[in-house]
């Protein structure tokens, strides 16, 4: 073992890059198994109804159809077939009710997927329609109730109090109280209140949901495109009433995840079907079916601030209604985890937050890159600029006067540590040349600029475990259940192993998640892998290093001067044996108080991201062009700087789509644009001509080699920065996403006193 190679901090090329660009990387979508049946889902066409009956006779009669399964059939292998991370509310197939258009009602199995699809179209369902609710604010006191009985899952210790409110659509109400907001509002120089809305959007991974289940002798193997293999094993074992060790979950590369492929998606249906028919079953959803599986929360946000004449914010009140759709998924956790950052990265003495997770009759909403933060930042940063404009204070200066500085308590009472908020703000302003003159355009083309900053807490409580196995020739493997879904985690983890053991990166392999082989990890979510798994991997590598040192001492040599292979040969007389190190990481954490939302240690680390934009507005058409996009983040010390920068720009571009073009449109609860032809994500021609990415010089002292997560930070500021830049250019303020050309032109015309007709 030689001295460390200095792998950490290097922009090492991605380990999987060649396999992916040459088309050799394996995905579940390309998996073919002997004797495999294909499953096609028959889906609900009504938003809320009692399911009276199903006629599948024509489907069963179609030549080539092996079996048609309905909700009752699932009971044979899963006595209570309801799953979900926060509530056990989602049935594998609909039982007595359907709760959204697109909900799975039956499954057709056939050897030919086209036959299965044709048969699914022959199934007829009879429904008794029920009143439906779609809007999150209406859902608060709607007489239409999506779930008659609420069944908390009890999975997460921090959501122990989760009960839901019976006979309402409220799955979780989270509140935070700090100081005396009423008193502060009563004595304020100024009070500002605004309301904002965000729309329902989709993750759009280019690989849709796919799972294949293989029954064995009292065992089950799942090949699935999942971000959470350990959760899938535990939840499938629970549904089957089996011990964990009889369920094996294997995950190869993912074609994108973005939070969609967490918890159970099609795994339970594939597992039940395979066990019922005794053959491998693969369910591969189409791009269109993704629109009926998991989405991002639409939200309504009300925010009110007490502000002094000098622009100091003394109190803030936030009310957030999250549209969770028909099943809670991880929505309650978003409501709480993201809820407590609703006042923004500002030092505000008096705070009141009420955040509600609501059921509606829309497709379920869950985690999506940012986990609720982009919705909140949209509100609090738009609000901040509206106040600044009203008071005649420069937007950057307004933020400087209120920014949450190191060592000061956040709304939960947790004192900020290793959070480079101020630095990120200042670097963004510098990259934007904020204090310099700016060309504001002329005629029908007006230019403006905007800036916005956001922050996010990391997930906790949470656990990661890793194993490092040194082989007798000095090469090495890392066993960990982090899923490389395109974010480059394999490379970063290998860099950490390389740094600790001094083994060259091309002699390290990363074994992909296989719950029979790789140890437990909570999931690949919330930008947690670099920090949490990174710490576990570092501990495992250090454990292996100590054992190797002991082995060397045992045979009378030094690891500093003797090659690893030689140490093994001396010990075993030939190329044989292993050194296995293991490590785990569980961060310290104090749960928030249920009544006040207070905690002295609410997060293992903070993520900080800011965005600056320059836009050009066509005043005759309302079209907005983002000419420049500046993304600045605090990633601590980067393990791989190049990957950090692509994470910043990738996240920002994704949020650019959610800001400008993407929107699931509904009619009577039915999504009417469920395809990439009608739901438009940004293409290469929509990308700003100039994108600057910067990591500020910062260290996360509790992170592996000073690093922390950065996968979401680029999303935070994009939407409000664009809205503010538009106001800077043409003087109109939009409070609802997406910002379409038409919405801009309509606002311009209102301002000019010659509004467009409504149609």
């Amino acid at each position, binding site marked *: 073992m030689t001295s460390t190679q200095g792998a950490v901090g290097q922009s090492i090329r991605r380990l999987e890059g060649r396999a992916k660009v040459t088309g050799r990387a394996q995905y579940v979508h390309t998996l073919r198994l002997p004797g495999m049946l294909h499953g096609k889902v028959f889906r609900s066409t009504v938003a809320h109804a009692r399911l009276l009956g199903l006629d599948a006779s024509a489907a069963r009669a179609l030549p080539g159809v092996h079996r048609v399964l309905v909700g009752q059939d699932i009971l044979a292998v899963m006595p209570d077939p309801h799953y979900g991370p926060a509530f056990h509310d989602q049935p594998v197939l609909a039982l007595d009710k359907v709760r959204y258009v697109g909900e799975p009602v039956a499954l057709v199995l056939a050897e030919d997927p*086209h036959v299965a*699809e*044709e048969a699914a*179209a022959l199934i007829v369902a009879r429904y008794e329609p029920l009143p439906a609710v779609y809007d999150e604010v209406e859902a608060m006191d709607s007489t239409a109730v999506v779930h008659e009985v609420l069944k908390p899952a009890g999975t997460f210790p921090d959501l122990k109090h989760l009960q839901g409110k019976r006979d309402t659509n409220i799955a979780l109400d989270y509140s935070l109280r700090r100081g005396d907001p009423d008193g502060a509002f009563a004595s304020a120089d100024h009070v500002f209140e605004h309301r904002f809305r965000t729309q329902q959007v989709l993750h759009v991974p280019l690989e849709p949901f796919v799972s294949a289940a293989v029954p064995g002798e009292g065992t089950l193997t799942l090949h699935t495109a999942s971000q959470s293999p350990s959760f899938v094993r535990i939840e499938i074992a629970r549904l089957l009433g089996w011990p964990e060790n009889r369920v094996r979950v294997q995950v190869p590369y993912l074609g994108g995840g973005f939070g969609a492929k967490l918890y159970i998606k099609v795994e339970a249906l594939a597992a039940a079907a395979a066990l019922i028919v005794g053959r491998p079953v693969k369910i591969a959803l189409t791009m269109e079916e993704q629109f009926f599986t998991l989405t991002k929360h639409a939200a309504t946000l009300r925010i009110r601030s007490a502000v002094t004449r000098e622009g100091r914010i003394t109190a803030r009140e936030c009310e957030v209604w999250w549209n969770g759709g028909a099943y809670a998924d991880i929505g309650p956790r978003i409501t709480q985890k993201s809820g407590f950052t609703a006042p923004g990265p500002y030092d505000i003495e008096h705070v009141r937050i009420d955040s509600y997770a609501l059921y509606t009759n829309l497709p379920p909403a869950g985690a999506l890159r940012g986990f609720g933060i982009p919705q909140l930042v949209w509100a609090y940063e738009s609000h901040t600029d509206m106040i600044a404009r009203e008071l005649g204070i420069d937007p950057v200066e307004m933020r400087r006067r209120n920014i949450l500085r190191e060592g000061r308590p956040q709304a939960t009472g947790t004192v900020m540590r290793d959070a480079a908020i101020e630095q990120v703000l200042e670097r963004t302003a510098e990259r934007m040349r904020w204090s310099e003159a700016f060309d504001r355009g002329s005629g029908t083309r007006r230019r403006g600029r905007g800036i916005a900053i956001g922050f996010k807490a990391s997930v906790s409580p949470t656990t990661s475990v890793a194993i490092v196995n040194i082989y007798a020739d000095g090469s090495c493997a890392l066993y960990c259940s982090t899923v490389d879904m395109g974010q480059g985690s394999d490379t970063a983890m290998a860099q950490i192993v390389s740094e600790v053991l001094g083994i060259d990166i091309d002699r390290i392999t990363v074994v992909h998640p296989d719950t029979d082989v790789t140890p437990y990890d909570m999931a690949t979510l919330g930008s947690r892998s670099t920090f949490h798994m990174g710490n576990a991997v570092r501990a495992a590598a250090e454990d292996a290093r100590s054992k190797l040192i002991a082995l060397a001492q045992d045979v009378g040599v030094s690891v500093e001067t003797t090659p690893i292979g030689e140490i093994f040969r001396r010990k075993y007389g030939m190329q044989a044996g292993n050194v296995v190190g293991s490590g785990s990481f569980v961060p310290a954490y104090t749960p928030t108080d249920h009544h006040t939302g207070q905690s002295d240690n609410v997060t293992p680390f903070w993520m900080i991201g800011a965005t600056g934009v320059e836009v050009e507005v066509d005043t*005759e*058409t309302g*079209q907005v062009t983002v000419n420049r996009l500046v993304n600045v983040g605090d990633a601590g010390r980067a393990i791989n700087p190049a990957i950090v920068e692509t994470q910043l720009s990738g996240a920002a571009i994704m949020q650019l789509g959610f800001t400008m*073009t993407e929107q699931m*449109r509904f009619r009577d609860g039915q999504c009417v*644009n469920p*395809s990439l*032809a*009608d739901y*438009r*994500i*940004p*293409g290469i*021609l*929509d990308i700003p001509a100039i994108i600057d990415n910067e990591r500020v010089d910062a260290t996360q002292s509790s992170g592996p080699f000073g690093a922390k997560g950065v996968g979401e930070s680029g999303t935070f500021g994009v939407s409000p920065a664009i809205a503010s830049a538009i106001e800077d250019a043409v003087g109109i303020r939009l409070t609802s996403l997406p910002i*379409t*050309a*038409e919405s801009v*032109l*309509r606002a311009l015309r209102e301002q000019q006193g010659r509004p*467009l*007709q*409504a*149609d």
Partner: protein
Amino acid sequence: MKPFELLEPRTLREAATLLHAAGDAARPVGGGVAIMLMLKMGVLQPETLVSLASVEDRYSTIALDDDGQLRIGALATLRAIERSGLVRDRIPVLAQALRRLSNVRVRNVATLGGHLAHADPHMDLPPVLIALGASVRVVGPAGERVMPLADLHAGYLETVLARGELIAEVTCPVQGSRRAAYLKCTTRAADDWPALGVAAVLEAEGEVVRSARLVVSAATDVPTRLSRAEALLRGVRIDDALLARVGEAAAAEVTPIGDEHGSAAYKRELLDVYVRRAVRAALAAR
């Protein structure tokens, strides 16, 4: 998608005969772009697809005919037309329009015949070719006929083609001294289908227009000539005041249809703006 039989005739006439015999149960397939989407959505469930991939080579060629017009085979891909030196040289506005038509993956396989016969008003080339005065030659089981392209489209996804009739080629007068531009407005992503397209073809001397052809697409069911706006342009010098009247006339003479790209009211505004800009762009072109 339901299973279907795939036929691959060697001649266009044979294809027309097969389609005529099979009736509604059969569909022709050129590049297969639009039809694949419709098959996957279940909008079309044909028993037979008649592929045009193996018909005579001359239906994919681009050449000048004897009277100096450009003849483009219906099976020429959009990419081949975009890259054709003849097209760039003789009808530059067509090559320019193609550069922003959908994306290169679509242009690599989509054919001109399919692009026109699909009769989706969001297609980019119909307004350009109609404004240039193009015509189509149609082959059917009983023979051939030639019609102005302006007469091809009968409604949303509808043409005047009879059962078994196939577009064989498009003939388009070269641009010559005419100045032309095609502007389109996409409202969701740059390579989205347009909310509005406007083609302008002008004969002009300096800033004085002798004659003008203006065609709007995407906002209406079929590509539509803007006759009143054209009339205002004839024989006059272009200035902002005149263009304002031209834009207003255009917005008043058609009734745009609201859809996911924009409301009818918004498209009326776009039409006003884009007609003015298209005339300016055409004047600025060579």
